[in-house]
């Protein structure tokens, strides 16, 4: 059976039939014709009736192609993602996923069928729009290749979005509360803001912006090389295509960024088909994706650092994004890689039955200790590159790493301690403890020290447990920037910070070890 034999793909057949009933198809085509007619008449009469400004010389067919491109984006990116989410989450509410799980269709076919099938209506509508664009281009001697390349770039980005939304849909457990999905969503939302607000090339290449930039530069040659949105004088437009200082062609760079993430999301969908209870990503997938993201980040950052010709631009601030990204991976990773109470017990029983001392570290039921260690090693290695880049002194490099790694060790071990302890079924406790340590106590510190010039040194104890403070401190030490001496005695403040973070981390490690021993002895 061929992977692309969609006529015999059960998941594709199901979604396709449901989404392409004559009534739906009829109204979609009618709506499309109306919208296209509106676009054409609008663009055409703008030209004829001289409604445009004098500088605007773009002919009506170019305006139409651009407008159709935006319509394509809305159809594929927005409606496609919504459909992917809706039809995947229904596999869970209907429990039909059970039937697919117990059928002999290969996993890859099921994943492909679900993602392509649920968005099939959007795909063929976008192909219809493409046809109209191509006809317009042919009739007016515009480069057909550019329009095809736009479509391929947009389609790649749409496929990435569809994979992500299908994964979120199929991860939604209809029986459990939706808090988990909500937290993840809010996390992704904030992460997206932190990343999108910067000029790193790999973030640009994660989006649909390159597709539109490419089309724009061909249809309106006066915009060529100005990037999208238009960056003005400096070389940012070029830097958007630069990784480790090398300028890459548009499509390969986009593929380099988007395909691995798409593959990761599709693998996550596959894990949902295999076993709903296991985490969306395995321990090794979490490590690999963190490694890949940090590599892309570094490639983008290095390019900005050395090649930006904008005199007023200080890329150093982006290092904060990297540190936040590390904390983000640590938090998401800990939540996914840490076995649940029952998961850990299952692992113990299984290992005992198989006559093993313990399962492989990467097993879903294994302790997260090795995973946490490897993740810290990864972060330390990445930080070392930046210590080198900023010529951080060895002492400050050690301080910077100790602060960040302390927070990571604490969170990873604390989650494991919590999951294995008697409190494991009361998730709100974990949530509350973290909110108090990370947000409420530092907030209290901020309030009582407001307005004071230099804070009493002891007050650092209120800030130390929070990784928000930790990230800032790590950043300052990494940058050798000791000017910001907020506390009366900076040296004592650092010592207190380190003592607090690492006693939290060590206690969490000990507690987690204790709980592991306890469960092991229970049998």
């Amino acid at each position, binding site marked *: 059976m061929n992977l692309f034999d969609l006529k015999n*793909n059960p998941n594709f057949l199901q979604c396709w039939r449901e989404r392409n009933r004559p009534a739906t198809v009829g109204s979609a085509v009618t709506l499309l014709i109306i919208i296209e007619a509106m676009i054409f008449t609008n663009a055409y009469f703008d030209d004829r009736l001289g409604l445009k400004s004098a500088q605007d010389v773009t002919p009506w067919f170019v305006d139409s192609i651009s407008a159709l491109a935006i319509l394509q984006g809305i159809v594929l990116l927005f409606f496609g993602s919504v459909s992917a989410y809706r039809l995947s989450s229904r596999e869970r509410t209907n*429990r*039909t996923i059970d039937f697919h799980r*117990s059928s*002999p269709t290969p996993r890859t076919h099921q994943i492909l069928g679900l993602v392509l099938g649920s968005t099939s209506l959007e795909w063929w509508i976008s192909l219809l729009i493409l046809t109209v664009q191509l006809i317009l281009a042919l009739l007016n001697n515009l480069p057909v290749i550019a329009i095809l390349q736009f479509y391929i770039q947009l389609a790649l980005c749409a496929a990435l979005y569809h994979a992500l939304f299908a994964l979120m849909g199929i991860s939604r457990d209809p029986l459990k509360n939706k808090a988990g999905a909500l937290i993840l969503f809010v996390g992704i939302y904030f992460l997206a803001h932190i990343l999108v607000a910067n000029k790193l090339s790999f973030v640009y290449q994660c989006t649909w912006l390159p597709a539109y930039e490419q089309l724009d530069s061909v249809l309106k040659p006066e915009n060529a090389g100005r990037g999208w949105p238009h960056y003005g004088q400096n070389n940012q437009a070029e830097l958007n295509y630069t990784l480790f200082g090398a300028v890459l062609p548009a499509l390969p760079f986009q593929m380099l960024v988007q395909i691995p993430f798409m593959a990761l999301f599709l693998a996550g969908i596959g894990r949902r088909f295999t076993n709903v209870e296991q985490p969306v990503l395995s321990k090794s997938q979490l490590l690999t994706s963190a490694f890949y993201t940090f590599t892309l980040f570094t490639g983008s950052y290095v390019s900005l650092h050395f090649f930006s010709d904008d005199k007023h631009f200080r890329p150093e601030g982006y290092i904060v994004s990297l540190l936040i990204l590390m904390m983000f991976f640590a938090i998401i990773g800990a939540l996914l890689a840490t076995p649940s109470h*029952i998961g850990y017990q299952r692992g113990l*029983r299984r290992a005992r039955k198989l006559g093993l001392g313990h399962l492989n570290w990467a097993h879903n039921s294994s302790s997260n200790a090795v995973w946490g260690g490897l993740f810290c090693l990864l972060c330390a290695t990445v930080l070392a590159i930046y210590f080198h880049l900023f010529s951080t002194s060895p002492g400050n490099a050690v301080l910077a790493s100790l602060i960040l790694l302390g927070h990571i060790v604490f969170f990873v071990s604390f989650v494991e301690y919590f999951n294995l302890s008697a409190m494991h079924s009361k998730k709100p406790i974990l949530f509350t403890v973290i909110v108090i340590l990370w947000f409420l106590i530092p907030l209290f510190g901020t309030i009582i020290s407001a307005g004071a010039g230099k804070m009493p040194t002891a007050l650092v104890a209120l800030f130390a447990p929070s990784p928000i403070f930790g990230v800032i401190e790590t950043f300052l030490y990494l940058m050798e920037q000791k000017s910001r001496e907020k506390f009366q005695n900076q040296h004592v403040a650092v010592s207190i910070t380190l003592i607090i973070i690492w006693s939290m981390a060590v206690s969490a490690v000990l507690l987690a070890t204790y709980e592991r021993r306890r469960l092991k002895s229970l049998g």
Partner: protein
Amino acid sequence: MGTMISLKSLRVDYEDVNAVKDIDLEISAGQIYGLVGPNGAGKTSAIKAIAGILEPTYGEIKIAGHDLELEPREALRKLGYMPDFPPVYENLKVWEYLDVFAAAYLIPGAQRAGKVKHWLKKVSLSEKHDALIKDLSRGMRQRLILAKTLLPDPQVLILDEPASGLDPLARKQMRDILKEAAAEGKTILISSHILTELSEFCNAVGIMEKGELRVSGSIEEIRVRLGSHKRLTVRLASPTPANVDKVYHFLGNSKHCASMAKTEKQEINCLFTGSKEDAAWILTQLTLQETSIYDFTCVEDDVEDIFLKIGAKEVS
């Protein structure tokens, strides 16, 4: 063909519940195996593990010789699974639904339409061929799932409480379909908390309780193992006290009769441990004594009685 379903120390755990406790089970080709037990016994959990839907804590599951963990595709291809709850796509038409799952079992496109028609007819849903599933009743959905399960012609059928939600006619129809499947040599594992619907066509049973398989084997074996007896009932045409006492004492003195009882209707009941010949001899003797016997019945316990008996043992 030998063993079609083989479980070795299968264990399933949920948070705070050990739903299936190290079960060993072998079901050979052509057997109809009834898995019985009260609600919460762990039947569904065991069946889900066999169907590859639930990852067991540990244990080896083999279907037609293929290990479910090592060769899932080969194992699942042999298996038809019918859950206790009908999972359907509400917005598909009946034929489309069957066609989707025919494709899932790798049946080529050209053969699917014919098979769909054939099975819709078998479960009496032919006139619903083009209806949307959301317009079907619970029982119709159950029949649709039965058709879905049998359509790929699996060698092993696992059915979790298939009769729930069916009306008596549909139950009979399902029994006939399953009997036919068994006659074709398919192996069937069927679970239920009510035995009447199974007892007449299961040739082996397993009784589950609190996650353990208490007893398992052919009905004959279980009967022997539980020291199960035949039950003898004697009714008299004109049950005068003298007559009844006469029969009562005669039976009481026989070494094959135990647990003598007289009912309000003056019937005499007892457990009978002897052979058919022993029963015939007793009947002859009683007839000779002119006791006006009009009914002399010697029945074996059916599965239901065995089930009740085990239940009673657990309670006591």
